[in-house]
Structure formats: structure tokens, C-alpha cells
């Protein structure tokens, strides 16, 4: 169960990051601008950096490398997503989709906040069960 959940969360980040990285970065910049939360200069930095953080967090979770740090990273990412989408919903910003998976999957902001919350709880649960999470992981293999 813990391993499947770890790999599932990893895949979510991997797909999300990969889609953004193989597209022109202007597309993700547009998504970030729509949330109206960052200053202009920071929007561009976020559009460049976040997809790489998502991709590497996803890869590390799937492979089970640096699991403690990867899970904490996932926790921070899900928390940030919930805050960013939540403030957009509270301010009734005209978002047609969350933009989380680029153009591959369209999810409404009110739905993605539920998904992110479930993922956040799942990540919490994984952090509290380190022994189960480390099964079939590089962390475990490299320690042996």
C-alpha cells in the first residue's frame, strides 16, 4: 500500500513536471500569471524552476531515493498548490482549469484542491510510516 501510494504520488509529479518541461515555458508562465499571486519577475523564475522540482521529486519518489527529503518536498509542493489554488478560489479568479498538468489533463480548480488535499494527507501518512515506504526503494538497496 505504502509503496503503491509513494509511486502514485511520484507519477503525479513526474507527469506534471515533464509535460511542462517539454512545452514552451511561456505556457506555464501564463498559468502562473492567472493565479495573480507572484510579482512579475518572480513569475518567470517560478515558471522555470517549479517543473524541474516536480520532475525530480517525482523521479526520486518512484525510485525511492532520498525518500525522507522527497516526501518532505512533496508535502511542501502540495501545501503550496493548495494555498495558491485556494486563494484563487476565494478571490473568484476566472480560472477555467488549474493548469497543473498543462494541456494533457484539464481539472477544475475546485477539484484539484480536493485532489491535492488527499495527496497531502497521503504524503503525511507516508512520512509517518518510513519502514513501509522504503520497501522496493533505492534507499533500501543502497543501505544493504
Amino acid at each position, binding site marked *: 500500500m505504502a509503496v503503491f501510494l509513494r509511486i502514485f504520488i511520484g507519477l503525479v509529479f513526474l507527469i506534471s513536471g515533464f509535460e511542462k518541461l517539454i512545452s*514552451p515555458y*511561456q505556457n506555464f508562465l501564463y498559468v502562473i500569471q492567472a493565479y495573480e499571486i507572484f510579482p512579475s519577475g518572480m513569475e518567470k523564475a517560478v515558471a522555470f524552476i517549479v517543473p524541474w522540482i516536480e*520532475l525530480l521529486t517525482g523521479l526520486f519518489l518512484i525510485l525511492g*531515493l532520498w525518500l525522507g527529503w522527497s516526501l518532505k518536498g512533496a508535502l511542501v509542493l502540495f501545501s503550496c498548490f493548495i494555498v495558491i489554488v485556494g486563494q484563487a478560489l476565494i478571490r473568484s479568479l476566472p480560472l*477555467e482549469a488549474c493548469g497543473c498538468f498543462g494541456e494533457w489533463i484539464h481539472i477544475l480548480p475546485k477539484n484539484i484542491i480536493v485532489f491535492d488535499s488527499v495527496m497531502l494527507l497521503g504524503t503525511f501518512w507516508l512520512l509517518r510510516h518510513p519502514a513501509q515506504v522504503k520497501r522496493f526503494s*533505492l534507499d533500501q538497496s543502497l543501505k544493504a
Partner: protein
Amino acid sequence: MVLSKQKITILIVGVAIVVVAIVRLILSPSAGSIDAVAARTQGPAQARVNIVEFLDFECPACAKGAMEIKEYLTKHPGDIHLQIKYFPLMNMHRHALQVASYAECVSRQGKFWPFFDTLMPLQSQWSPLFSAEAIFDQIAGQAGVDMAKLRACVSSEDVPTTIMNEKSLGISLGVKSTPTYFINNKMVVGYKSLVEELNKYFPQDK
């Protein structure tokens, strides 16, 4: 040879960077030329600012962008060449393909701009409707099109093909959402980036 955890990490990060770089290279936008459709262009062809816009007539940011560009066109009529390309987002907007079909058919009668200039400011009125055909008919009628020809055109099979060919061109250039502009070949997505880019050419308008 047993690799350390640090070395494996560096290897994984390196492989990830190489894979992303290769996929980006394979999917990199083709440098094919964008043919201008005379009926959907505005401004002198040799203008110093050439804008190609891929839009969905039902997207709210496209309406906002259209008003902004109209302002710039009014202030700098000789400096901007604008052309409109179809990029309907059918999975997000119920009227996307139908309104693009109307736009294509009024273009064929040389009435694209009067239709467009009335259609976009009224977007918030027709977008929520279940059926907006009556409004499109009305706007087309006001633009002065031959209604019989328009009806025949809207139901013809080649119109969606024309629209989807333009959307395919957009996809090949890396367009994923609307509005996406190519300002002197530089890709700019969304209203905010449009204003930032245009301000570089017309700093006095800031």
C-alpha cells in the same frame, strides 16, 4: 563497482536533463512559415510589429487581449500588422468551433473585422448561453454579410477542416492555450505577457 548514493543521484539528475533536452529537441516548434489570410489581417504588411494571434473566440483572456490590441492599432495604425488564426478549445468552450466557423464564413465574405469587433466585447453575453447561434447571426447580419451564403457556408464540411488545419499549425508551433501571440516571431502567451511585450515596442504607452 558499487555506486554511492550521491553518484546515483547525480546520474539520475543528469539522465533526466538529457531526456528532457532530447524530447524538447524532437518536439521543438517547426520553423514553417505562417501564411497570412488576407481577410483576417490588419495593418501594413511591412509594419515593424508583426503579431500573429492564435485565439479561441470564447476565451475571456482573448477578449481582453483583443481590446488591448485594438487600442494599440488605433494609436499606432502604421506600426502593427495583425493576423488572426483559429485555435478553438472545444474541450473547454461549448461554442468554440461554431463561433470559429461563423468567423471563417464571414471572412470569406470579407467581413471578418466588423464581425470580430462586435463579437469580442459581447463575449460575456453569448458565452454562457446554451445556444448562441441567434447572436452570431445577428452580429454577422450587422456586419453586412449575405445571410443565405453564410448559412450554407457554416454547414459546409470544409470550414471545420480549415479551422482545424490552423489549430494544427498552432500546435506545431508550440501553442497549447489561448491567447498565444507571436510578436515578431517571439512566442507570448496571455494578456499580461502581451502587454509587457507591446510596451517594449511602444514604451510611451506604458
